[in-house]
């Protein structure tokens, strides 16, 4: 899925999109993060921002300090130096997120959209049909049976793109077209082969399956997990979904409202890329 060489696409006079490959998979995304780390290490003064994404990265730069041509040459040289092999370990926090599948707020949001677009199939039913799942319980089981790799953050502060790590846990879905104008805070969605958690009430396009009562974004930094940042997750973290009942969901909502909720975050783990790939291959499917 990796291209032979990097492909560069200028985005106006201050940005360039660097495409590494075509597809959504762990190996490609890990290669993106390796390249981003190497670019950061090179500390090129003209670079203002880097956005790592699933199969590409975007660099914002000051064109009055470095020309597009020089920047592209520099990035290509870094990529050639680091190569495309993937191995090693990296620190990776495991964040367990309680989720209430098919709960009231997401159901109301889906129905609100369907009042304008009555032909839109209800999200969980569409997902079951497209992925050969017999019912909603089977959908929830498959969705919660894997750890997810935080491949990228973007679109909104803290919004995460989650790739399932367990082979066979892939669920795919088309995105809404046109997009929704609103989505409940904490909603869990599936689009393409990705899951996401909506950090706030925002527009959106992923098919909705439930809601996490514990926030992944806290602009006021009230909860302990947000002491250092407004956003909970970082690229390279892993997320696991823990299904909870409506009662437990309501209890967590109340704990969050009271400023007492403590997130379940395991800080001491490392992620071994080689061992992960071996494990994924042993499970008989491409990672």
């Amino acid at each position, binding site marked *: 899925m990796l291209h032979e060489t990097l492909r560069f696409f200028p985005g106006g006079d201050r940005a360039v999109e660097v495409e590494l490959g075509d597809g959504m998979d762990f190996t490609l995304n890990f290669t993106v993060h390796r390249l981003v780390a190497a670019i950061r290490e090179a500390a090129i003064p003209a670079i203002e921002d880097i956005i790592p994404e699933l199969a590409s990265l975007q660099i914002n730069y000051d064109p009055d300090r470095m020309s597009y041509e020089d920047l592209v040459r520099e990035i290509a040289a870094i990529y050639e130096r680091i190569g495309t092999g993937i191995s090693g370990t990296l620190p990776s926090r495991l964040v367990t997120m309680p989720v209430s599948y098919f709960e009231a707020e997401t159901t109301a949001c889906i129905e609100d959209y369907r009042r304008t677009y009555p032909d839109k199939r209800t999200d969980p039913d569409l997902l079951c049909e497209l992925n050969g799942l017999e019912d909603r319980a089977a959908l929830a089981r498959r969705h919660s049976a894997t750890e997810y790799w935080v491949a990228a953050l*973007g679109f909104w502060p803290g919004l995460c793109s989650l790739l399932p790590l367990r082979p066979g846990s892939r669920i795919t879905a088309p995105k809404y077209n046109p997009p929704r104008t609103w989505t409940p805070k904490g909603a869990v969605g599936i689009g393409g082969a990705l899951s996401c958690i909506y950090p706030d009430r925002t527009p959106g396009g992923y098919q909705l399956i439930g809601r996490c009562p514990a926030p992944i974004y806290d602009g006021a930094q009230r909860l302990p997990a947000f002491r250092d940042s407004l956003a909970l997750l970082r690229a390279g973290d892993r997320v696991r979904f823990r299904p909870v009942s409506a009662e437990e969901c309501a209890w967590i909502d109340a704990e969050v409202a009271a400023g007492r909720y403590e997130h379940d975050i395991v800080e001491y783990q490392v992620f071994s890329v080689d061992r992960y790939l071996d494990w994924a291959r042993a499970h008989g499917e491409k990672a």
Partner: protein
Amino acid sequence: MSTHSITVLKPGLETTVQELPGRIGYLEQGFPVSGPFDKWSFRQANLLAGNPRDAAALECQFLGPALRFECDAVVAVTGADMRPKLDGQPVPMWQSVPVAAGQVLELAAAYTGARGYIAVSGGIDTPVVLGSRAVFHMARVGGQALAKAQILPLGAQPTGPRDLLAVPEAVRPPFPTDRTWQIEALAGPNDDWLDDASVEMFFSADWSVQAKSNRTGIRLTGPEFGFAGRALSKGSDHGQDPSNIIDHGYPLGAVNLAGQTPIILVNDAPSTGGFINPFTVASAAFWKLAQAKPGDILRFRRVDREEAARLRATLETVTSAGVTVRV
């Protein structure tokens, strides 16, 4: 209450504190750059107020605020013509205006343009969040839009006599009289997802600004796009619609195509997403997007990186300290 402050009597429609260069370095976590939408007017306002040109100042959208000064200061109003009044008496835009403690500055609805700027001597001194005072109000980063009775702290006021300055008309941002804007834009990053005729069409059609436009995006109405092979025969990871692509970064100023609706991504726009960006507005032309009102017409003129660099140099000149004159 701090003596160096402003009290908000009326907040206006969506008035925010903005600062340059904006929130740099946090796009990877999804925080937009924010900052003033019309950098040209913003910087000139600061120069007139005696500030560094990038200091924190106020951006007003469509309808301006009413502000009571709790200290003597110098203020400057630029950008959209919101008919500023001091204690009910009209005051000129594009020049320094001395105000005394207790006086009230009030801006009305935009007569021409869409966004007005108010700079105050000493700058606005709200807390720095993730490296900037710029407000991304939709996610409450750096604060929110101004609220009634809010108190805005100001930086230290210079002492002694001050020069009163003006920006000559020739170096102010030129607003068209026929509500038609020429916007310089570059092809890419994803122009290869459209068919050739649609690339040509983008640069020749009239595009109307929709009412649902704000600091996240300028929505356009116009003709339909046709797609190239890359958009029509692609892996399923890219999504179903021809305009879908595997999630990628969004450049500032990108013309983002969601289905058939082009949305120009501006200061508070999403950092990433799953739609193509066939064109990108030249950075020196962003200010025009800030001043285009719903119903205005945009016409895009294709430029290359060299011309975009010349436009940046011109903008740099007209926003440098040398452009002001004493009054």
